[in-house]
Every structure is written in structure tokens, then in C-alpha cells.
């Protein structure tokens, strides 16, 4: 635990003047370059620590950016000792100057990694991160001094809608102070609309999507797509699992890309067609009306086998013929 020992000796020496909290030598550059200054075994230990779930505050030192995937579901190191000694207040000032660059740099780093964090936000909420409450404190002395510097960035991020503070927020234990009961309940609510982007306006328009041979229905929000292409690719993603192993599909392997193109082929006229039930109860082929009209009339979607869809006209055809086909 050499970085830790280093740290302890630093504290007894009366300050972390030359090292940041990781026990690394002070560098003006930030992020992954910090790791380069270490001996190899230190690096290993550090990068292992860096895969821990987060240290939270905006402007706080974030773990290495290149390990983002591991970060989120990192192994819980319960036997890890906390390596942020709580400094008495008189030491705050001494360490803040050396850590200024690090903190502001890492804030930039944070916004870069925001995208990767956003997917995991639900799991972060649900997960109990006990690891580093004191990390937040150690950072806090730094971050506070940073505030004047960070404001422009803070403003930027809120107006940018890139929401890097929220990503950081999501990683502080118990912050914002919303009851876990509520968080869990809302997480399940959001999951229902997770596949859609939730544009504001007139609210989501959910329709059921069924597929021949699929064991259950899905729901999609039509208002979250702008055209047939988007709808089609979303449905492809949703139902790609069901076409695996279907008779007639060419030898399946696990690659997503291949599945997608195969499904596209399937949907584009080989085996499956997309149909919808309109306000009158008629089943029609999707695609002939403009998108706006379509979402106005569509009540249900169905991915049918091409053979079943024969006889379904795209334009309004005599109803009697369609209805008899459906009954058949």
C-alpha cells in the first residue's frame, strides 16, 4: 500500500504540498498523464483504485478516464482502506494550491466522460456506495476554494445541457437527498420510457408493439421518433433477440452488427413487415402516410411475418377484404 504510506507520512510532515491526494507528484497536466509519473506497482494500485466507483463532487478528482466502463460496475473493495485522511482545517490552505490545477482539470475530464456515466445513472442510484464518504470531505476543502474558478465552467455546463454536474451528483452517496424508495420507484417508471428520448411537448404517445412469435409485448413512444427510419431501427434493436435462431435465418453468431443488418433485411421485405392498426381497427402497412399523420392514427404496431401480410394494402382498401384476411 505504498501510496497510502506515502500519504500518511505526508500528513505527519504537515501537508500535502507536493503531492495530490493520490500520492502522485504534482503535475500541471491532468487526467491520465498523472499516472505516468508513478512507479509501475504504484500505477497498478492506483489504477485498481481508479476503477472504484467514484469520488463524486463536481470539480473533484475523477478516476482515470480510460477506465470508465470498469468504473461503474467496479469490484467493491470492501477491505480497502480509505486513503483520504481527514485533514484538520489548518491544512486546507496548504493543499489547495497544489490541487487547484488537478481539480479544474478533472472537471473537464468529467464532462468528457459524462456520456459513459449517464447510462449507469440508474444503477448508481440503486447501488449503495459506502466506499468513500470521506473522499467527499477531502475533496470538499479543495472544491470550495475552486468555486470561483469553476463558476464559468459550471455555468457552461448548465446552459450546455451537457449535464456534467448531474453525472457527478449521481455518484455522491445519498445526494441529492431523495429517499431511496422514491429513487427505486422512479427508476422503474423511467425504465418504461427508457427506450425513448422523452422530448417535452405534448407528452409521450405509447403504443403496444407485438411481434409474431415473441413472448411479450413492448411499448414505444411514437413521439420520440421523427421519422419511419428511427422507428424502424428502434424496433430492430428491440426485437433483434427474437429473430435469432429463427428458421430461415442464416447461421447466427452473437455479433450485434450482424444481427442488426440481418433484421434490417428481414424487416425490409424478406420475412417480416411492420403493420399498424389504425383508429378504425384496420391493419395497414406502415409507410405510406407522412409521419405526422401516421402517429396521429396509429393505435398498435405489429411486426408480422411477410406471408401473413399479403393482402394488406398500404392505402385504405375495401375493409371487408382486409378483415376477412385477418380472420383467416
Amino acid at each position, binding site marked *: 500500500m505504498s501510496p497510502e504510506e506515502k500519504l500518511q507520512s505526508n500528513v505527519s510532515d504537515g501537508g500535502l504540498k507536493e503531492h495530490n491526494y493520490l500520492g502522485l507528484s504534482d503535475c500541471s497536466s491532468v487526467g491520465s498523464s498523472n499516472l505516468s509519473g508513478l512507479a509501475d506497482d504504484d500505477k497498478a494500485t492506483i489504477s485498481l483504485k481508479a476503477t472504484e466507483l467514484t469520488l463524486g463532487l463536481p470539480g473533484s478528482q475523477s478516476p482515470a478516464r480510460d477506465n470508465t466502463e470498469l468504473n461503474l460496475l467496479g469490484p467493491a473493495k470492501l477491505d480497502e482502506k480509505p486513503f483520504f485522511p481527514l485533514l484538520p*482545517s489548518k491544512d486546507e490552505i496548504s493543499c489547495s494550491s497544489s490541487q487547484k490545477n488537478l481539480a479544474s482539470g478533472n472537471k473537464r475530464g468529467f464532462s468528457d466522460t459524462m456520456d459513459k456515466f449517464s447510462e449507469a445513472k440508474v444503477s448508481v442510484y440503486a447501488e449503495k456506495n459506502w466506499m468513500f*464518504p470521506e473522499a467527499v470531505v477531502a475533496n470538499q476543502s479543495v472544491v470550495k476554494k475552486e468555486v*470561483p474558478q469553476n463558476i464559468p465552467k459550471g455555468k457552461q455546463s448548465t446552459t450546455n445541457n451537457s449535464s456534467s454536474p448531474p453525472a457527478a451528483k449521481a455518484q455522491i452517496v445519498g445526494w441529492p437527498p431523495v429517499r431511496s424508495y422514491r429513487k427505486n420507484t422512479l427508476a422503474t417508471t423511467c425504465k418504461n420510457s427508457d427506450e425513448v428520448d422523452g422530448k417535452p411537448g405534448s407528452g409521450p404517445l405509447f403504443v403496444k408493439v407485438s411481434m409474431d412469435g415473441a413472448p411479450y409485448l413492448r411499448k414505444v413512444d411514437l413521439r420520440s421518433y421523427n421519422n419511419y427510419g428511427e422507428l424502424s431501427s428502434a424496433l430492430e434493436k428491440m426485437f433483434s433477440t427474437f429473430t435469432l435462431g429463427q428458421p430461415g435465418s442464416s447461421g447466427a453468431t452473437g455479433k450485434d452488427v450482424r444481427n442488426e443488418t440481418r433484421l434490417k433485411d428481414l424487416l425490409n421485405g424478406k420475412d417480416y413487415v411492420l403493420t399498424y392498426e389504425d383508429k378504425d381497427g384496420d391493419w395497414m402497412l406502415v409507410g405510406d402516410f407522412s409521419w405526422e399523420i401516421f402517429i396521429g392514427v396509429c393505435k398498435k404496431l405489429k411486426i408480422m411475418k411477410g406471408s401473413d401480410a399479403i393482402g394488406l394494402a398500404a392505402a385504405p382498401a375495401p375493409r371487408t377484404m382486409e378483415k376477412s384476411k385477418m380472420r383467416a
Partner: protein
Amino acid sequence: MASVSLLFVTLLSVTLYINIKSFILWDQSQTFLPSLSDSVLMDRRFPFKVLEHIFSFVDSNEDRNSVSLVCKSWFETERRTRKRVFVGNCYAVSPLKVARRFPKMRSLTLKGKPHFADYNLVPDGWGGYAWPWIEAMAARRPLLEEIRLKRMVVTDECLEKIAASFRDFKSLVLTSCEGFSTDGIAAIASTCRKLRNLELRECIVDDLGGDWLSYFPETSTSLVSLDFSCLDSEVKLSDLERLLSRSPNLKSLKLNRSVTLDVLESLLRRAPQLVELGTGSFSDELDPEEISKLTKALSELKQLKSLSGLWDLLPEYIPVLYSVCPRLTSLNLSYATVQMPDLIDLLSRCSKLQKLWVMDLIEDKGLKTVALCCKELRELRVFPSGADLDETDVTLTEQGLVSVSEGCQKLESVLYFCVQFTNAALVSIAKNRPNFRCFRLCVMEPFAPDYRTQQPLDEGFKAIVERCKDLRRLSVSGLLTDKAFEYIGVHAKKLRMLSIAFAGDSDLMLHHLLSGCESLKKLEIRDCPFGDTALLENAAKLETMRSLWMSSCFVSFGACKQLSQKMPRLNVEVIDEHPPKTRPDSSPVERIYIYRTVAGPRLDTPEFVWTIHKKPEVGVSRLAIR
């Protein structure tokens, strides 16, 4: 001449005083000041029966506590007549003592874990077990009728014991509890013949299925309130229908999410007398006929005052609710992910609304509508929807709260989550609404200053505590220096509960609070640079408070030891999930929880909790007898 009239006046006033004093008890709003002198006189004038009768008009527990301090006979009389017992910290006193002291106890309310347990700051297994209390009451107070528990660990054994031991048991209300399964609920339902209230509010329940509902016997007709909104699994519709049909006194029904919209109509038809309704899911497809039936059923609920649930509420179903809106005094939309324009349609019809819980999807514009239309509003809570994480534009700013504070004259309780705030807004809010009793502002960005002036929010909160003289509960957030807490210490004299996160510069903060806030009972702090000095200097204050929670602050182990030694009637608990191998005095402590108690250190601590021993040389003792 002057001396005679003075003597006369004195005599008169003394007689009046003695007589008036006995009538002070009739006026419950007076705070009763204990006196020393008149006990003998009182005995002669007021025999036990008369005292008893007088005390029967004293309801509030605070007043009763004061009454019991006057003299021995008052203590005795009071304790023999107290029916509703409230214990704010289940570890402050032993169950046995409470059972013995109040022989006529009919209702027991207990609170267990610290408030910050709601936000995952208290590790699982910390404590708060209901069993010792249930066991003690079952043995000594079999006439107990009501048990209300908050943040406690309740097991199926507890529930079975309740069902088996209290023959007149009427009311079980569990808030934020955990540790039991639906089997325990079934035991209560099947055995408590006179059950009136069964409410599970936001509990974590091991849900083994919806059968528990069928355990209400066919003869059971006494239900007044039923809340199973926190359960997951489906209950049988026919069981629920039959239960409703035979419960004419049912006033409050809160369904869980798996009760679908298509069956709601049939349930409501059987309970038109409902005053409180929590619906299930509100998103299933209904055909027009079903919709109109549901609308009619809702309009038949002539006494409905409170509406909640509304999970996944779809905008096209909002008109269904229009008929109940004009009568509603309480509306909980905090699980309804409805956007602002639809919310406006709904809220503009709720002119009698007193309590509104909503998500930040309401935006400033929606709150403006509330300010215009809901003139009776007393309580507002705006929760974060997480929409900002999804990159949707949700424009909820400080302006929303300002509008409501302007328009709603009766507003006295607020919980508001917002990304950022300004001092100017806080000052306006304080000017508009000096009648706040509860003000909880959560600026979600830690250390966020006033975003217009870049100043700390000190001045804003100063305005709040200066103007709102009746403030009982306050939560602060955003960038705050020691100054803010100096203001709070000086002005917030009636403040009872204070929550702080990511604030302050030094120990001075804590010192201001502990030395200034006279009525402070609960203080909870996380991630602030408070430390030893302030705690030790104000140790005596801690015995006047219910509890103090500090996590991720600069408190050293040595200070904990000193504090514990200084104050014998405090339990100083160190909660440390990653304890160091050695504990020098200067080593920091992860979390401390300090509370006054007459029961001594508790015996049910898990391995990550240590109660600091009173003898400093022992250091830390862990009495881990479960």
C-alpha cells in the same frame, strides 16, 4: 392608602394566580412552566380524580411532559392517564420502563433510525429493532391498540406477536420500515378482528405474493384505512372487491401499482365513501366506454379529499380526474411523470388544494398556475424527476418558488429541489411568507453559489431565519460560509430540526448553531468541516437535544472519547464500516451518531458500530449481544 391598595392588589393577584394556574391546563396552547411551590396546596385543593379530569384535556405530549415535571403527585397522575405515548428515539429509554410508567397506554409511536438513513447514509443492520418493544408491550400492556413505527426493523415475528398478543389491536402504521414479508401482514389481517388501520408507507417488504389480502376474514368489517402502495405483487381483484363491499367505514384506500386502471372503476363503485384514494397504475389502455365509466365512478366520490398514486399517469387520462379536482385538499403527483401543460390543466381546477406534491416537471410556469389557482396551499413539495439527467429541458428555477410564495398566503411548508438558486429569490420568499414553519431547500449542485452574483447564499438564508420567526424545520444547501450559521444561531430560536450538507468553513459554524439555537432538537450534518472543538465546547447542549448526526466531518476519535466521558447520559456511537487497525486519538471517524439516553449503551450494535465507553481508558466497547 397606597400600601393598603397595594396589599389588596397583591392578595388578589395571588389568589387569581393560583386559580388561573389550574385553568392554564385547559388552554392547551399555553406552554406550561413548572412551578415548585404549590404541590401541597394542589393536593388539598385538587384530589386525584379532579387532576385526572383536568389532564384528560391535555393532549400534546410536550405539554404532558411538562405537566409531569411539576411535582410527584402530578407526575403520578399524569403517567396513569397518558394514553398516547411517543418515543422519538427508540434507544433513548428502555421498553420496560415505558411499559411500566404508562399503565393506560393505548397507542405507542416509535422512531428508530436517524433521518439520514433515508438517503443511504446509515449502513444496513445499524439497529432500530422493534422486537424488544413489541415483546415488552405484549407482556405488560395487552390492551395496546395502536403501534406506529418509523424507520425501524420489523420482522414477521414482530407482526405475529402483535396479532397474537393484543386482543383489541386496531391500528398498525409502518413508515419507512423494513425486515418483514407479506406473511407478517397476513398474520395481522387474519387475526386482528377489530383492525381499523393497516398502513404500510414506503416500506421495504419481502413480497411473497398478493395472498395476504385474502386473509381478512369474511366477518371483518371494521377497516377504516388500508395502504399497501409499497407492495409489488398483484392482489386478487375479487378479494379486494369483497373486502371493499363489506367495509362501510373505509375512508382511506391506497392501492399498489399492480392494480391496473381497468379494474379501478369496479373498486371505486364499492367504496363511494372514500376520503383518500391512492390509485394504482394509471397507464393501461382503456376503451372509450371504460373511460366514461371510470370518470363516472370518480365523480361519485363526493367526499374525496386526497388523491395519490397515479403512477405512469398518461396525459389523455387527466380529464378523467377533473370531477374530483374542485374538492381536493391533497394531491400527490410525485410519481406521475406528466409534463407541465397537462399539469396545468389539472391544477387549475384544484382551488381548494392545501397540499401538493409534484415533480420538477411542473416547471416555473406550472408553479405560476398554482400560485394563481391554489390559494389555500399550505404545503408544497417539488421533487427532482431526474429529467435534467435525461437532457430534457425542464425549466424549474428559483422563480417557481418565488411565485408560489407570492400567491399562496397560507404556505407554511416547503420542500424544493432545484439546480441553483439566488439570494434575491430567498429574500423575496422570506418577505412574502414570514409564516414558514418548515423550509427545506435542496440546491442540488453542492457548493453552488448564487448563480447571478457568485456570492454564498448566506444572505438569503439570513432573510429566511430573520423573518420566519416560527420556523421549526430548516434544510440548507448551496454555498454557505460560517456567517450563514451565525445568522441561524442568532435568529432561529424556535428551530427544532436542522439539516446541513456540504457547507461552512470551520468549527465556528457548529459552535454558532449549538450555542445559539435554543430549541434545537435534531441536528444532522454531512460533509462539513466541523470538528472537535465545537463539539466539546458545546457538549452540554447535546443533552438537551434528541440526537446529532455527523458524517464525513472532521471529528476525531479522541474527541469522541472526551465527549463521552464528559456527558454520561449521551451515547456516542461511532459508525465505521472501514475501521482502521489502530485508532489513535487523532484518527478521523466516518460517522458519529450522538443521542441522549437514560438506557445506557445499547446491546444490539452490529460490528461496524461502537459505543464509546464512559471510562476513557477502555476506549471503545462493543457490546454486540443481539
